[in-house]
Protein backbone atom coordinates (compact mmCIF):
# COMPACT_ATOMS: atom_id res chain seq x y z
CA UNK A 1 0.00 0.00 0.00
CA UNK A 2 2.55 2.54 1.14
CA UNK A 3 4.89 1.01 -1.41
CA UNK A 4 2.46 1.87 -4.19
CA UNK A 5 2.26 5.46 -3.02
CA UNK A 6 6.03 5.79 -2.71
CA UNK A 7 6.63 4.21 -6.10
CA UNK A 8 4.06 6.31 -7.89
CA UNK A 9 5.36 9.47 -6.22
CA UNK A 10 8.82 8.59 -7.47
CA UNK A 11 7.49 8.08 -10.99
CA UNK A 12 5.63 11.38 -10.89
CA UNK A 13 8.61 13.30 -9.51
CA UNK A 14 10.74 11.78 -12.24
CA UNK A 15 8.29 12.69 -14.98
CA UNK A 16 8.10 16.20 -13.53
CA UNK A 17 11.88 16.50 -13.79
CA UNK A 18 11.81 15.25 -17.37
CA UNK A 19 9.06 17.64 -18.41
CA UNK A 20 9.97 20.81 -16.56
CA UNK A 21 13.72 20.85 -15.99
CA UNK A 22 15.97 22.46 -18.53
CA UNK A 23 19.26 20.90 -17.55
CA UNK A 24 20.00 17.70 -19.39
CA UNK A 25 21.77 15.98 -16.51
CA UNK A 26 18.73 16.75 -14.38
CA UNK A 27 16.52 15.17 -17.00
CA UNK A 28 18.61 12.01 -16.99
CA UNK A 29 18.43 11.96 -13.19
CA UNK A 30 14.67 12.15 -13.57
CA UNK A 31 14.82 9.08 -15.79
CA UNK A 32 16.67 7.13 -13.12
CA UNK A 33 14.06 8.17 -10.56
CA UNK A 34 11.33 6.88 -12.85
CA UNK A 35 13.22 3.61 -13.21
CA UNK A 36 13.48 3.16 -9.44
CA UNK A 37 9.81 3.92 -9.05
CA UNK A 38 8.75 1.38 -11.65
CA UNK A 39 11.02 -1.23 -10.13
CA UNK A 40 9.61 -0.74 -6.65
CA UNK A 41 6.11 -0.93 -8.06
CA UNK A 42 6.74 -4.19 -9.90
CA UNK A 43 8.43 -5.87 -6.96
CA UNK A 44 5.67 -4.80 -4.62
CA UNK A 45 3.14 -6.40 -6.97
CA UNK A 46 4.80 -9.74 -6.32
CA UNK A 47 4.94 -9.39 -2.55
CA UNK A 48 2.80 -11.58 -0.35
CA UNK A 49 2.31 -10.68 3.30
CA UNK A 50 4.29 -12.85 5.68
CA UNK A 51 6.17 -14.84 3.08
CA UNK A 52 9.85 -14.97 2.37
CA UNK A 53 12.23 -14.81 -0.54
CA UNK A 54 12.07 -17.59 -3.14
CA UNK A 55 15.37 -19.19 -2.22
CA UNK A 56 15.38 -22.75 -0.90
CA UNK A 57 18.40 -22.20 1.28
CA UNK A 58 17.31 -24.48 4.07
CA UNK A 59 15.24 -27.64 3.76
CA UNK A 60 12.36 -26.49 5.96
CA UNK A 61 11.17 -23.95 3.44
CA UNK A 62 8.41 -24.97 1.09
CA UNK A 63 6.80 -23.38 -1.92
CA UNK A 64 3.95 -22.13 0.28
CA UNK A 65 6.25 -19.82 2.22
CA UNK A 66 7.45 -17.82 -0.71
CA UNK A 67 6.64 -14.66 -2.59
CA UNK A 68 6.14 -14.59 -6.32
CA UNK A 69 9.58 -14.82 -7.98
CA UNK A 70 8.58 -13.64 -11.45
CA UNK A 71 8.38 -9.87 -10.75
CA UNK A 72 11.80 -10.05 -9.15
CA UNK A 73 13.22 -11.69 -12.24
CA UNK A 74 11.62 -9.03 -14.43
CA UNK A 75 12.98 -6.22 -12.27
CA UNK A 76 16.50 -7.62 -12.50
CA UNK A 77 16.27 -7.23 -16.26
CA UNK A 78 14.67 -3.81 -15.97
CA UNK A 79 17.40 -2.48 -13.67
CA UNK A 80 20.16 -3.50 -16.04
CA UNK A 81 18.32 -1.97 -18.98
CA UNK A 82 17.88 1.22 -16.97
CA UNK A 83 21.60 1.44 -16.27
CA UNK A 84 22.38 0.90 -19.94
CA UNK A 85 20.00 3.64 -21.00
CA UNK A 86 21.38 6.03 -18.37
CA UNK A 87 24.94 5.46 -19.49
CA UNK A 88 24.06 6.01 -23.12
CA UNK A 89 22.03 9.11 -22.30
CA UNK A 90 24.93 10.63 -20.40
CA UNK A 91 27.36 9.98 -23.21
CA UNK A 92 24.93 11.72 -25.55
CA UNK A 93 24.83 14.61 -23.07
CA UNK A 94 28.62 14.83 -23.18
CA UNK A 95 28.50 14.90 -26.97
CA UNK A 96 25.93 17.70 -26.96
CA UNK A 97 27.97 19.68 -24.46
CA UNK A 98 31.08 19.36 -26.60
CA UNK A 99 29.14 20.73 -29.52
CA UNK A 100 27.14 23.54 -27.93
CA UNK A 101 28.94 24.24 -24.64
CA UNK A 102 25.69 24.34 -22.72
CA UNK A 103 23.43 21.89 -20.95
CA UNK A 104 20.31 23.97 -21.17
CA UNK A 105 17.89 22.47 -23.66
CA UNK A 106 16.29 25.82 -24.32
CA UNK A 107 19.54 27.18 -25.63
CA UNK A 108 19.95 24.41 -28.12
CA UNK A 109 18.02 25.34 -31.19
CA UNK A 110 17.49 21.88 -32.56
CA UNK A 111 15.78 20.59 -29.45
CA UNK A 112 12.50 22.37 -29.98
CA UNK A 113 9.63 20.33 -28.64
Amino acid at each position, binding site marked *: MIYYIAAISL*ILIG*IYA*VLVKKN*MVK*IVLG*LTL*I*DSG*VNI*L*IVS*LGYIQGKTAPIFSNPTLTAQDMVDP*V*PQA*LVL*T*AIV*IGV*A*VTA*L*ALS*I*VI*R*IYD*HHKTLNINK*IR*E*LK*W
Partner: protein
Amino acid sequence: MYLDPVLMIALPLFAAFLIPPLARISKGLVKYVPVLIIGFNLYEMVMLLPHSMVKPVIVVIAAWAPPLGINLTIGPLGNILALIISLVGFVVAIYNIRFMEEEPNEKYHMLFLLLTAGATGMVLTGDIFNMFVFLEITSISSYALTAFLRDRDGAEAAFKYLLIGSLASTFILLGIALIYATTGTLNMAQIAVRIKDVDPRIAIMALILLVTGFGIEAEMFPLNGWAPDAYSQAPTPIGAAFGGIVVKAGVYALARLVYTIFDFQGIFHFILIAGIITLLIAEMSAIRQKQLKRMLAFSSIGQMGLVLIALGLATTRGVEGGLFQMFNHAMIKPLLFLSAGYLVFYSGSKNIEDMDGMGRVKPLLSFFFAFGAFAILGLPPLSGFWSKFIILSETIRNGFIAIAALALFGSIIEAVYYLRVVGRLYFKAPHEGLHVQYVPKSALVAMGILAIITLIAGLYPDFVMVYLKPAAAELLDKTVYIKSVLMAGL
Protein backbone atom coordinates in the same frame (compact mmCIF):
# COMPACT_ATOMS: atom_id res chain seq x y z
CA MET B 1 14.52 -26.79 -45.67
CA TYR B 2 14.88 -24.42 -42.77
CA LEU B 3 17.03 -24.46 -39.67
CA ASP B 4 15.76 -23.76 -36.18
CA PRO B 5 14.25 -20.24 -36.29
CA VAL B 6 15.85 -19.28 -32.99
CA LEU B 7 19.08 -18.97 -34.96
CA MET B 8 17.68 -15.85 -36.51
CA ILE B 9 18.16 -14.12 -33.19
CA ALA B 10 21.02 -16.15 -31.77
CA LEU B 11 23.31 -15.78 -34.77
CA PRO B 12 23.16 -11.97 -35.00
CA LEU B 13 23.94 -11.69 -31.31
CA PHE B 14 26.75 -14.20 -31.67
CA ALA B 15 28.15 -12.32 -34.64
CA ALA B 16 27.85 -9.01 -32.81
CA PHE B 17 29.79 -10.40 -29.86
CA LEU B 18 32.50 -11.59 -32.22
CA ILE B 19 32.83 -8.41 -34.25
CA PRO B 20 35.38 -6.67 -31.96
CA PRO B 21 38.00 -9.44 -32.27
CA LEU B 22 37.26 -9.71 -35.96
CA ALA B 23 37.79 -5.99 -36.36
CA ARG B 24 41.20 -6.34 -34.82
CA ILE B 25 42.13 -8.94 -37.43
CA SER B 26 40.71 -7.12 -40.41
CA LYS B 27 38.60 -4.01 -40.51
CA GLY B 28 37.52 -4.69 -44.07
CA LEU B 29 35.78 -7.94 -43.24
CA VAL B 30 33.43 -6.48 -40.65
CA LYS B 31 31.16 -4.75 -43.08
CA TYR B 32 30.28 -8.01 -44.79
CA VAL B 33 29.14 -9.64 -41.55
CA PRO B 34 25.72 -7.93 -41.42
CA VAL B 35 25.11 -8.78 -45.07
CA LEU B 36 25.88 -12.41 -44.39
CA ILE B 37 23.89 -12.74 -41.19
CA ILE B 38 20.85 -10.82 -42.34
CA GLY B 39 21.03 -12.71 -45.61
CA PHE B 40 20.77 -15.90 -43.60
CA ASN B 41 17.73 -14.48 -41.80
CA LEU B 42 16.17 -13.66 -45.13
CA TYR B 43 16.75 -17.20 -46.35
CA GLU B 44 15.22 -18.59 -43.16
CA MET B 45 12.14 -16.47 -43.48
CA VAL B 46 11.59 -17.35 -47.13
CA MET B 47 11.97 -21.02 -46.34
CA LEU B 48 9.61 -20.76 -43.38
CA LEU B 49 6.93 -19.00 -45.38
CA PRO B 50 5.13 -22.11 -46.74
CA HIS B 51 5.11 -23.70 -43.28
CA SER B 52 3.89 -20.76 -41.30
CA MET B 53 1.12 -19.99 -43.77
CA VAL B 54 -0.51 -23.31 -42.97
CA LYS B 55 -0.09 -23.28 -39.21
CA PRO B 56 1.97 -21.10 -36.84
CA VAL B 57 5.41 -22.51 -36.15
CA ILE B 58 6.08 -22.56 -32.40
CA VAL B 59 9.68 -22.68 -31.21
CA VAL B 60 10.16 -23.32 -27.53
CA ILE B 61 13.26 -21.97 -25.86
CA ALA B 62 15.09 -23.67 -23.00
CA ALA B 63 12.77 -26.65 -23.38
CA TRP B 64 9.90 -25.17 -21.40
CA ALA B 65 6.45 -25.31 -22.90
CA PRO B 66 4.84 -21.91 -23.58
CA PRO B 67 3.24 -20.66 -20.40
CA LEU B 68 6.40 -21.47 -18.47
CA GLY B 69 9.15 -20.52 -20.86
CA ILE B 70 9.57 -18.05 -23.66
CA ASN B 71 8.57 -19.13 -27.10
CA LEU B 72 8.84 -17.81 -30.62
CA THR B 73 5.52 -17.84 -32.44
CA ILE B 74 5.94 -17.55 -36.17
CA GLY B 75 2.52 -17.12 -37.63
CA PRO B 76 1.81 -15.63 -41.06
CA LEU B 77 1.90 -12.07 -39.74
CA GLY B 78 5.15 -12.49 -37.82
CA ASN B 79 6.72 -14.29 -40.72
CA ILE B 80 5.80 -11.62 -43.24
CA LEU B 81 6.97 -8.79 -41.02
CA ALA B 82 10.20 -10.58 -40.22
CA LEU B 83 10.63 -11.13 -43.94
CA ILE B 84 10.13 -7.44 -44.61
CA ILE B 85 12.52 -6.51 -41.84
CA SER B 86 15.17 -8.93 -43.02
CA LEU B 87 14.76 -7.74 -46.59
CA VAL B 88 15.13 -4.09 -45.69
CA GLY B 89 17.97 -4.96 -43.33
CA PHE B 90 19.71 -6.92 -46.06
CA VAL B 91 19.37 -4.13 -48.59
CA VAL B 92 20.53 -1.48 -46.16
CA ALA B 93 23.44 -3.70 -45.13
CA ILE B 94 24.50 -3.87 -48.79
CA TYR B 95 24.20 -0.12 -48.99
CA ASN B 96 26.28 0.21 -45.84
CA ILE B 97 29.24 -1.59 -47.37
CA ARG B 98 30.55 1.52 -49.02
CA PHE B 99 28.71 4.07 -46.96
CA MET B 100 30.30 4.26 -43.57
CA GLU B 101 33.97 5.11 -43.67
CA GLU B 102 34.07 7.20 -40.51
CA GLU B 103 35.71 5.69 -37.45
CA PRO B 104 34.80 3.57 -35.52
CA ASN B 105 32.97 1.92 -38.36
CA GLU B 106 32.98 -1.60 -36.97
CA LYS B 107 30.77 -0.34 -34.16
CA TYR B 108 28.40 1.10 -36.71
CA HIS B 109 27.97 -2.26 -38.41
CA MET B 110 27.57 -4.00 -35.08
CA LEU B 111 24.88 -1.60 -33.93
CA PHE B 112 23.07 -1.95 -37.21
CA LEU B 113 23.15 -5.73 -36.99
CA LEU B 114 21.70 -5.61 -33.48
CA LEU B 115 19.03 -3.13 -34.58
CA THR B 116 17.81 -5.63 -37.14
CA ALA B 117 18.09 -8.54 -34.73
CA GLY B 118 16.08 -6.68 -32.10
CA ALA B 119 13.30 -5.83 -34.52
CA THR B 120 13.22 -9.43 -35.77
CA GLY B 121 12.97 -10.64 -32.20
CA MET B 122 10.12 -8.26 -31.52
CA VAL B 123 7.96 -9.61 -34.31
CA LEU B 124 8.78 -13.26 -33.63
CA THR B 125 8.50 -13.55 -29.88
CA GLY B 126 5.40 -14.78 -28.15
CA ASP B 127 6.14 -13.35 -24.74
CA ILE B 128 5.26 -9.80 -23.81
CA PHE B 129 8.22 -9.10 -21.56
CA ASN B 130 10.59 -10.58 -24.08
CA MET B 131 9.06 -8.21 -26.59
CA PHE B 132 9.95 -5.36 -24.24
CA VAL B 133 13.54 -6.56 -24.04
CA PHE B 134 13.84 -6.70 -27.80
CA LEU B 135 12.20 -3.31 -28.06
CA GLU B 136 14.92 -1.97 -25.81
CA ILE B 137 17.62 -3.60 -27.95
CA THR B 138 16.10 -1.97 -31.01
CA SER B 139 15.69 1.42 -29.46
CA ILE B 140 19.07 1.57 -27.70
CA SER B 141 20.84 0.75 -30.93
CA SER B 142 18.69 3.38 -32.65
CA TYR B 143 19.71 6.01 -30.10
CA ALA B 144 23.38 5.25 -30.58
CA LEU B 145 23.07 5.17 -34.35
CA THR B 146 21.13 8.42 -34.51
CA ALA B 147 23.96 10.20 -32.74
CA PHE B 148 26.64 8.36 -34.67
CA LEU B 149 27.82 11.04 -37.09
CA ARG B 150 29.70 13.95 -35.63
CA ASP B 151 29.22 16.52 -38.35
CA ARG B 152 25.53 17.11 -37.72
CA ASP B 153 23.09 17.52 -34.88
CA GLY B 154 22.50 13.84 -34.42
CA ALA B 155 23.15 13.97 -30.70
CA GLU B 156 20.26 16.37 -30.06
CA ALA B 157 17.89 14.21 -32.06
CA ALA B 158 19.15 11.15 -30.23
CA PHE B 159 18.61 12.77 -26.85
CA LYS B 160 15.08 13.70 -27.73
CA TYR B 161 14.43 10.22 -29.06
CA LEU B 162 15.95 8.71 -25.94
CA LEU B 163 13.76 10.76 -23.62
CA ILE B 164 10.58 9.85 -25.41
CA GLY B 165 11.71 6.25 -25.77
CA SER B 166 12.48 5.95 -22.07
CA LEU B 167 9.08 7.29 -21.13
CA ALA B 168 7.61 4.76 -23.55
CA SER B 169 9.46 1.91 -21.93
CA THR B 170 8.25 3.10 -18.52
CA PHE B 171 4.67 2.94 -19.72
CA ILE B 172 5.19 -0.47 -21.27
CA LEU B 173 6.70 -1.82 -18.07
CA LEU B 174 3.82 -0.47 -16.01
CA GLY B 175 1.37 -2.06 -18.42
CA ILE B 176 3.17 -5.38 -18.26
CA ALA B 177 3.20 -5.18 -14.47
CA LEU B 178 -0.54 -4.63 -14.38
CA ILE B 179 -1.12 -7.51 -16.76
CA TYR B 180 1.10 -9.84 -14.82
CA ALA B 181 -0.46 -8.89 -11.51
CA THR B 182 -3.94 -9.67 -12.74
CA THR B 183 -3.47 -12.59 -15.13
CA GLY B 184 -0.40 -14.19 -13.62
CA THR B 185 1.27 -14.86 -16.94
CA LEU B 186 3.42 -13.16 -19.52
CA ASN B 187 2.68 -15.36 -22.48
CA MET B 188 0.64 -13.36 -24.96
CA ALA B 189 -1.65 -16.21 -25.91
CA GLN B 190 -2.45 -17.02 -22.32
CA ILE B 191 -2.98 -13.36 -21.50
CA ALA B 192 -5.45 -13.23 -24.38
CA VAL B 193 -7.37 -16.10 -22.81
CA ARG B 194 -7.38 -14.69 -19.31
CA ILE B 195 -7.90 -11.01 -19.99
CA LYS B 196 -11.65 -11.56 -20.05
CA ASP B 197 -11.74 -12.30 -16.33
CA VAL B 198 -9.78 -9.21 -15.39
CA ASP B 199 -11.44 -6.18 -13.87
CA PRO B 200 -12.13 -4.05 -16.98
CA ARG B 201 -10.81 -0.90 -15.31
CA ILE B 202 -7.40 -2.51 -14.85
CA ALA B 203 -7.46 -3.98 -18.33
CA ILE B 204 -8.26 -0.64 -19.91
CA MET B 205 -5.50 1.08 -17.96
CA ALA B 206 -3.02 -1.60 -19.05
CA LEU B 207 -4.17 -1.22 -22.63
CA ILE B 208 -3.76 2.55 -22.51
CA LEU B 209 -0.28 2.25 -21.04
CA LEU B 210 0.83 -0.32 -23.58
CA VAL B 211 -0.70 1.47 -26.56
CA THR B 212 0.99 4.69 -25.48
CA GLY B 213 4.30 2.89 -25.14
CA PHE B 214 4.25 1.03 -28.41
CA GLY B 215 2.55 3.92 -30.17
CA ILE B 216 5.72 5.92 -29.72
CA GLU B 217 7.67 3.41 -31.78
CA ALA B 218 4.84 3.23 -34.29
CA GLU B 219 4.83 7.02 -34.74
CA MET B 220 1.26 7.46 -33.60
CA PHE B 221 0.00 11.02 -33.47
CA PRO B 222 0.78 12.79 -30.24
CA LEU B 223 3.82 10.64 -29.66
CA ASN B 224 5.85 11.08 -32.82
CA GLY B 225 7.88 14.12 -31.87
CA TRP B 226 11.06 12.13 -32.10
CA ALA B 227 10.61 10.94 -35.64
CA PRO B 228 11.41 13.98 -37.86
CA ASP B 229 14.58 14.83 -35.98
CA ALA B 230 15.79 11.28 -35.74
CA TYR B 231 15.08 10.55 -39.40
CA SER B 232 16.78 13.64 -40.67
CA GLN B 233 19.81 13.71 -38.37
CA ALA B 234 20.65 10.01 -38.41
CA PRO B 235 22.98 8.63 -41.09
CA THR B 236 21.01 7.98 -44.28
CA PRO B 237 20.82 4.17 -44.04
CA ILE B 238 19.58 4.47 -40.49
CA GLY B 239 16.82 6.82 -41.57
CA ALA B 240 15.87 4.14 -44.09
CA ALA B 241 16.04 1.50 -41.36
CA PHE B 242 13.74 3.53 -39.11
CA GLY B 243 11.11 3.56 -41.81
CA GLY B 244 11.58 -0.03 -42.86
CA ILE B 245 12.45 -1.77 -39.60
CA VAL B 246 11.78 0.06 -36.34
CA VAL B 247 8.38 1.41 -37.23
CA LYS B 248 7.28 -1.92 -38.63
CA ALA B 249 8.13 -3.64 -35.37
CA GLY B 250 6.23 -0.97 -33.44
CA VAL B 251 3.14 -1.37 -35.59
CA TYR B 252 3.35 -5.13 -35.24
CA ALA B 253 3.38 -4.77 -31.46
CA LEU B 254 0.42 -2.42 -31.62
CA ALA B 255 -1.54 -4.76 -33.86
CA ARG B 256 -0.77 -7.77 -31.73
CA LEU B 257 -1.88 -5.82 -28.70
CA VAL B 258 -5.23 -4.56 -29.91
CA TYR B 259 -6.18 -7.56 -32.01
CA THR B 260 -4.86 -10.58 -30.16
CA ILE B 261 -4.37 -9.69 -26.54
CA PHE B 262 -7.07 -7.19 -25.72
CA ASP B 263 -10.57 -7.38 -26.96
CA PHE B 264 -12.09 -3.92 -26.75
CA GLN B 265 -14.14 -2.63 -29.63
CA GLY B 266 -13.68 0.98 -28.54
CA ILE B 267 -9.95 0.92 -29.16
CA PHE B 268 -10.44 0.46 -32.88
CA HIS B 269 -12.23 3.75 -33.24
CA PHE B 270 -9.54 5.38 -31.20
CA ILE B 271 -6.88 4.00 -33.51
CA LEU B 272 -8.88 5.08 -36.55
CA ILE B 273 -9.06 8.63 -35.26
CA ALA B 274 -5.44 8.64 -34.17
CA GLY B 275 -4.56 7.42 -37.64
CA ILE B 276 -6.41 10.15 -39.48
CA ILE B 277 -5.01 12.86 -37.21
CA THR B 278 -1.52 11.44 -37.65
CA LEU B 279 -1.99 11.42 -41.39
CA LEU B 280 -3.31 14.95 -41.69
CA ILE B 281 -0.85 16.60 -39.32
CA ALA B 282 2.09 14.79 -40.85
CA GLU B 283 1.14 15.71 -44.40
CA MET B 284 0.50 19.32 -43.42
CA SER B 285 3.91 19.49 -41.80
CA ALA B 286 5.61 17.72 -44.67
CA ILE B 287 4.50 20.29 -47.21
CA ARG B 288 6.07 23.05 -45.14
CA GLN B 289 9.46 21.40 -44.83
CA LYS B 290 12.46 22.85 -46.55
CA GLN B 291 14.78 19.93 -45.95
CA LEU B 292 14.43 16.86 -48.10
CA LYS B 293 14.97 14.28 -45.38
CA ARG B 294 12.64 16.01 -42.94
CA MET B 295 9.99 15.99 -45.61
CA LEU B 296 10.51 12.28 -46.12
CA ALA B 297 10.26 11.75 -42.37
CA PHE B 298 6.91 13.51 -42.14
CA SER B 299 5.73 11.61 -45.17
CA SER B 300 6.70 8.42 -43.38
CA ILE B 301 4.59 9.41 -40.39
CA GLY B 302 1.73 10.11 -42.76
CA GLN B 303 2.03 6.67 -44.29
CA MET B 304 1.90 5.10 -40.86
CA GLY B 305 -1.26 7.10 -40.23
CA LEU B 306 -2.77 5.39 -43.23
CA VAL B 307 -1.72 2.02 -41.84
CA LEU B 308 -3.33 2.90 -38.52
CA ILE B 309 -6.56 3.83 -40.29
CA ALA B 310 -6.53 0.47 -41.99
CA LEU B 311 -5.88 -1.34 -38.73
CA GLY B 312 -8.60 0.66 -37.03
CA LEU B 313 -11.17 -0.58 -39.51
CA ALA B 314 -10.81 -4.12 -38.18
CA THR B 315 -12.23 -5.75 -41.30
CA THR B 316 -10.49 -8.46 -43.28
CA ARG B 317 -9.95 -6.42 -46.39
CA GLY B 318 -9.00 -3.34 -44.43
CA VAL B 319 -6.31 -5.16 -42.50
CA GLU B 320 -5.05 -6.71 -45.74
CA GLY B 321 -4.81 -3.25 -47.23
CA GLY B 322 -3.01 -2.01 -44.15
CA LEU B 323 -0.47 -4.81 -44.33
CA PHE B 324 0.02 -4.19 -48.02
CA GLN B 325 0.59 -0.54 -47.25
CA MET B 326 3.15 -1.52 -44.65
CA PHE B 327 4.90 -3.70 -47.18
CA ASN B 328 4.96 -0.89 -49.71
CA HIS B 329 6.14 1.62 -47.21
CA ALA B 330 8.89 -0.72 -46.08
CA MET B 331 10.12 -1.10 -49.65
CA ILE B 332 9.65 2.43 -50.98
CA LYS B 333 10.65 4.60 -48.06
CA PRO B 334 14.15 3.09 -47.79
CA LEU B 335 14.45 3.52 -51.55
CA LEU B 336 13.58 7.19 -51.21
CA PHE B 337 15.85 7.64 -48.24
CA LEU B 338 18.82 5.90 -49.78
CA SER B 339 18.58 7.85 -53.02
CA ALA B 340 17.88 11.09 -51.15
CA GLY B 341 20.99 10.46 -49.07
CA TYR B 342 23.20 10.61 -52.13
CA LEU B 343 21.22 13.47 -53.64
CA VAL B 344 21.80 15.46 -50.47
CA PHE B 345 25.43 14.43 -50.42
CA TYR B 346 26.11 15.50 -53.99
CA SER B 347 24.20 18.72 -53.85
CA GLY B 348 25.96 19.58 -50.63
CA SER B 349 22.80 20.85 -49.01
CA LYS B 350 19.87 19.40 -47.17
CA ASN B 351 17.39 21.80 -48.68
CA ILE B 352 14.96 20.87 -51.37
CA GLU B 353 15.75 24.01 -53.40
CA ASP B 354 19.29 22.89 -53.95
CA MET B 355 18.20 19.67 -55.60
CA ASP B 356 17.58 21.50 -58.86
CA GLY B 357 18.55 19.63 -61.94
CA MET B 358 20.01 16.60 -60.27
CA GLY B 359 18.08 14.55 -62.82
CA ARG B 360 20.50 15.62 -65.51
CA VAL B 361 23.62 15.22 -63.44
CA LYS B 362 22.76 11.93 -61.81
CA PRO B 363 20.09 10.32 -63.96
CA LEU B 364 20.01 6.89 -62.34
CA LEU B 365 19.88 8.21 -58.79
CA SER B 366 17.16 10.68 -59.67
CA PHE B 367 15.26 7.99 -61.47
CA PHE B 368 15.22 5.89 -58.32
CA PHE B 369 13.97 8.82 -56.31
CA ALA B 370 11.28 9.68 -58.83
CA PHE B 371 10.26 6.05 -59.09
CA GLY B 372 9.92 5.84 -55.32
CA ALA B 373 7.96 9.07 -55.20
CA PHE B 374 5.53 7.87 -57.84
CA ALA B 375 5.16 4.53 -56.16
CA ILE B 376 4.40 6.02 -52.78
CA LEU B 377 1.92 8.44 -54.29
CA GLY B 378 0.07 5.56 -55.81
CA LEU B 379 0.25 6.19 -59.52
CA PRO B 380 -1.87 3.39 -60.90
CA PRO B 381 0.46 0.64 -62.10
CA LEU B 382 2.76 0.98 -59.10
CA SER B 383 2.24 -0.80 -55.81
CA GLY B 384 1.26 2.22 -53.70
CA PHE B 385 -1.90 2.52 -55.73
CA TRP B 386 -3.26 -0.87 -54.76
CA SER B 387 -2.78 -0.46 -51.05
CA LYS B 388 -4.26 3.02 -50.99
CA PHE B 389 -7.13 1.91 -53.15
CA ILE B 390 -7.95 -0.99 -50.89
CA ILE B 391 -7.78 1.09 -47.73
CA LEU B 392 -9.86 3.97 -49.07
CA SER B 393 -12.51 1.79 -50.63
CA GLU B 394 -12.77 -0.24 -47.45
CA THR B 395 -13.08 2.92 -45.37
CA ILE B 396 -15.94 4.10 -47.53
CA ARG B 397 -17.59 0.70 -47.45
CA ASN B 398 -17.58 0.82 -43.66
CA GLY B 399 -19.29 4.17 -43.68
CA PHE B 400 -16.42 6.38 -42.58
CA ILE B 401 -16.84 8.64 -45.58
CA ALA B 402 -15.49 11.71 -43.84
CA ILE B 403 -12.33 9.88 -42.89
CA ALA B 404 -11.91 8.59 -46.41
CA ALA B 405 -12.28 12.10 -47.75
CA LEU B 406 -9.72 13.43 -45.31
CA ALA B 407 -7.31 10.63 -46.15
CA LEU B 408 -7.76 11.39 -49.83
CA PHE B 409 -7.06 15.03 -49.11
CA GLY B 410 -3.88 13.95 -47.31
CA SER B 411 -2.87 11.93 -50.35
CA ILE B 412 -3.33 14.95 -52.55
CA ILE B 413 -1.09 17.03 -50.33
CA GLU B 414 1.42 14.23 -50.47
CA ALA B 415 1.25 14.26 -54.26
CA VAL B 416 1.88 18.00 -54.29
CA TYR B 417 5.07 17.92 -52.29
CA TYR B 418 6.53 14.84 -53.90
CA LEU B 419 5.85 16.12 -57.39
CA ARG B 420 7.40 19.42 -56.41
CA VAL B 421 10.65 17.67 -55.58
CA VAL B 422 10.55 15.49 -58.67
CA GLY B 423 9.83 18.55 -60.79
CA ARG B 424 12.82 20.33 -59.37
CA LEU B 425 14.98 17.33 -60.04
CA TYR B 426 14.14 17.21 -63.72
CA PHE B 427 12.94 20.59 -64.88
CA LYS B 428 15.36 23.03 -63.30
CA ALA B 429 18.86 23.88 -64.33
CA PRO B 430 21.54 22.41 -62.09
CA HIS B 431 23.42 24.56 -59.61
CA GLU B 432 27.01 25.51 -59.84
CA GLY B 433 29.60 23.78 -57.77
CA LEU B 434 28.20 20.29 -57.36
CA HIS B 435 30.89 17.89 -56.35
CA VAL B 436 29.53 14.94 -58.17
CA GLN B 437 31.26 11.68 -57.69
CA TYR B 438 30.84 8.12 -58.66
CA VAL B 439 28.00 6.40 -56.80
CA PRO B 440 29.22 3.14 -55.26
CA LYS B 441 27.91 0.03 -56.95
CA SER B 442 26.73 -1.47 -53.69
CA ALA B 443 24.40 1.48 -53.16
CA LEU B 444 22.99 1.15 -56.66
CA VAL B 445 22.48 -2.57 -56.18
CA ALA B 446 20.64 -1.90 -52.94
CA MET B 447 18.35 0.64 -54.53
CA GLY B 448 17.88 -1.57 -57.55
CA ILE B 449 16.65 -4.47 -55.44
CA LEU B 450 14.08 -2.29 -53.73
CA ALA B 451 12.92 -0.77 -57.03
CA ILE B 452 12.49 -4.16 -58.66
CA ILE B 453 10.49 -5.50 -55.74
CA THR B 454 8.29 -2.42 -55.82
CA LEU B 455 7.74 -2.84 -59.52
CA ILE B 456 6.82 -6.51 -59.20
CA ALA B 457 4.48 -5.82 -56.31
CA GLY B 458 2.81 -3.15 -58.39
CA LEU B 459 2.40 -5.20 -61.52
CA TYR B 460 1.29 -8.37 -59.76
CA PRO B 461 -0.26 -7.30 -56.47
CA ASP B 462 -1.81 -10.73 -56.02
CA PHE B 463 1.65 -12.15 -55.66
CA VAL B 464 1.97 -10.27 -52.40
CA MET B 465 -1.65 -10.45 -51.39
CA VAL B 466 -1.58 -14.25 -51.35
CA TYR B 467 0.66 -14.06 -48.33
CA LEU B 468 -1.07 -11.12 -46.71
CA LYS B 469 -4.46 -12.82 -46.58
CA PRO B 470 -3.51 -15.43 -43.97
CA ALA B 471 -1.74 -12.73 -41.99
CA ALA B 472 -4.87 -10.61 -41.88
CA ALA B 473 -6.88 -13.68 -40.98
CA GLU B 474 -4.50 -14.37 -38.11
CA LEU B 475 -5.05 -10.90 -36.71
CA LEU B 476 -8.81 -11.03 -36.97
CA ASP B 477 -9.25 -14.54 -35.65
CA LYS B 478 -7.10 -14.97 -32.60
CA THR B 479 -8.24 -18.48 -31.72
CA VAL B 480 -5.78 -20.11 -34.11
CA TYR B 481 -2.91 -18.20 -32.60
CA ILE B 482 -3.93 -18.94 -29.04
CA LYS B 483 -4.63 -22.57 -29.67
CA SER B 484 -1.39 -23.24 -31.47
CA VAL B 485 0.68 -21.58 -28.77
CA LEU B 486 -1.01 -23.25 -25.85
CA MET B 487 -1.12 -26.63 -27.56
CA ALA B 488 2.63 -26.58 -28.05
CA GLY B 489 3.05 -27.58 -24.45
CA LEU B 490 0.97 -30.71 -24.77
